[in-house]
């Protein structure tokens, strides 16, 4: 695993931080209660993080996978 693989810890921290620090339904974001919006936001970030990890993964470049 490359050092970039350590980025994978981010989603774990992010996902939990919202409910731990701010366990309230408000403020509503785009109509969603805060907790739900927070988790949805982190799903999007997670996908982006995994794309970055994949992009720079030496294994991918060795085996010639195309993204």
């Amino acid at each position, binding site marked *: *695993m490359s050092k970039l*693989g350590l980025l*994978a810890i981010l*989603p*774990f921290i992010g*996902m*939990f931080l919202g*409910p*731990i620090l701010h*366990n*309230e*339904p408000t403020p*509503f974001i*785009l*109509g*969603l*209660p*805060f*907790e*739900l919006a927070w*988790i*949805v936001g*982190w*799903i*999007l970030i*997670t*996908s982006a*993080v*995994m*794309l970055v*990890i*994949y992009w720079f*993964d030496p*294994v*991918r470049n060795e*085996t010639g*996978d195309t*993204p």
Partner: protein
Amino acid sequence: MNIALILIALTTIAALGIGIVARSNQTMSLEQWTVGGRKFGVALVFLLMAGEIYTTFTFLGASGYAYGLGAPAYYILAYGTLAYVLSYFILPIIWTYARRHGLVSQPDFFARKYDSPALGILVALVGVVALVPYLVLQLTGLGVIVQVASFGGVSKTVAVITGAVVVALYVMVSGVRGSAWTAIVKDVAIIIVAVFLGLYLPVHYSGGMGQMFAAVDHAKPGFLAFPAHGQSVTWFVSTVLLTACGFFMWPHSFGASYTAKNAAVFRKNAIVLPLYQLVLLFIFFVGFTAMLVVPGLKGAATNMALLKITVAAFPPWFVGVVGATGVLTALVPGSLIMMSAATLFARNVVAAFSPGMSEDDTVKLARLLVPVIAIIGAYFTISGNDTIVALLLMGYSFVTQFFPALICSLAPRNPATKEGAFAGIAVGVATVVYFTLTKQTLAKLLPALPGAWKDLNIGIVALGLNVIVLVAVSALTARSRALAGRAAE
């Protein structure tokens, strides 16, 4: 028979048809029946694994949980995403190893890695036990669908037995290939239905998404945040960790990973599948709207929330469409679960004890076991009365006990011994059994614990004990082995 039931019946027959067509031209060796000959590309593995995501659990369970408990349901959105992050690193290693050694099932992997047939048998037995609540929840879903779609005309018992027979038939005619193809139809259907219901219902009843959530917040203050006790933030964090680690520990998900053509499949899936989770958001919208529109369902009846609001809002033919989608979400995973349980028991328990058994006999035995498992599942479904989410969490508490031993085995030099792995899993599983059978909670058992810790998911507590035992026993056995080695010199 009303139009809703007719649509549901036609869908079921069509699914059986797809299963039979998918099977033709395929000789059914064990490898064909269970891992599709290891020839599935990105799309099919994606769907088989998504077949795990979009089950009755999502469709009826998640909406019912949002309806009954509110914010704690969000855990369902979080854990899958984190599981895919883990899968990026874990699954390619498992896949490579399984391919090199021609493994077919999950216990094969543990038995081989730890060079211990006994560990393989333990993993198989725990796997079968964990699959039972998972099967029960699919049958519960089927039962609920038929009950509601028949407008109460068909009893729960009849509905569940019919469902169990259909799932068993489906497994016996099709195997994994049928599941993969039906999974495509199922996924297209569930996405369309979920997005439509999730957008239409809040607008129809409350005038918009924001208004709907505001109304929920007004009707039940605190419902949209985690409660101070019970399903609190501690519960959320521990449950998400437990289920994220357990996601690929299910015998059938573990097995589904063997179906991939190459390891790159998993890395790509880890990018896309988190986004796929977002369909759950629409299911939550349905559950929350249902809380406003069809209030009053309690306990296991919350499983009906999505269907009840569908009946309230739409004509019977559309109830049929939603019901048929629900049937597919139970049929595909239900068949995978039944097939996994049957194969595990035939191959990794019975055949492990009788070395002379041929592969043909194993396949035959596995097929004979399918109806037996269907009967067991139907029995527990009819006699039980749990919410769908509670059933799945019970299964997760079991399968996640494999996680520490699995992770250790992936290291270049495995720090765990076979005795350590065996003892850890045994203690973890025994803890879960104790808490489940006695309905004990951490708060009752250890009243001195500080407030927040009392809400820890029991599965996580069991996992903690599992790790402690694994480390201790591994250290002891490694040392005594080293001593014995030195004495022998």
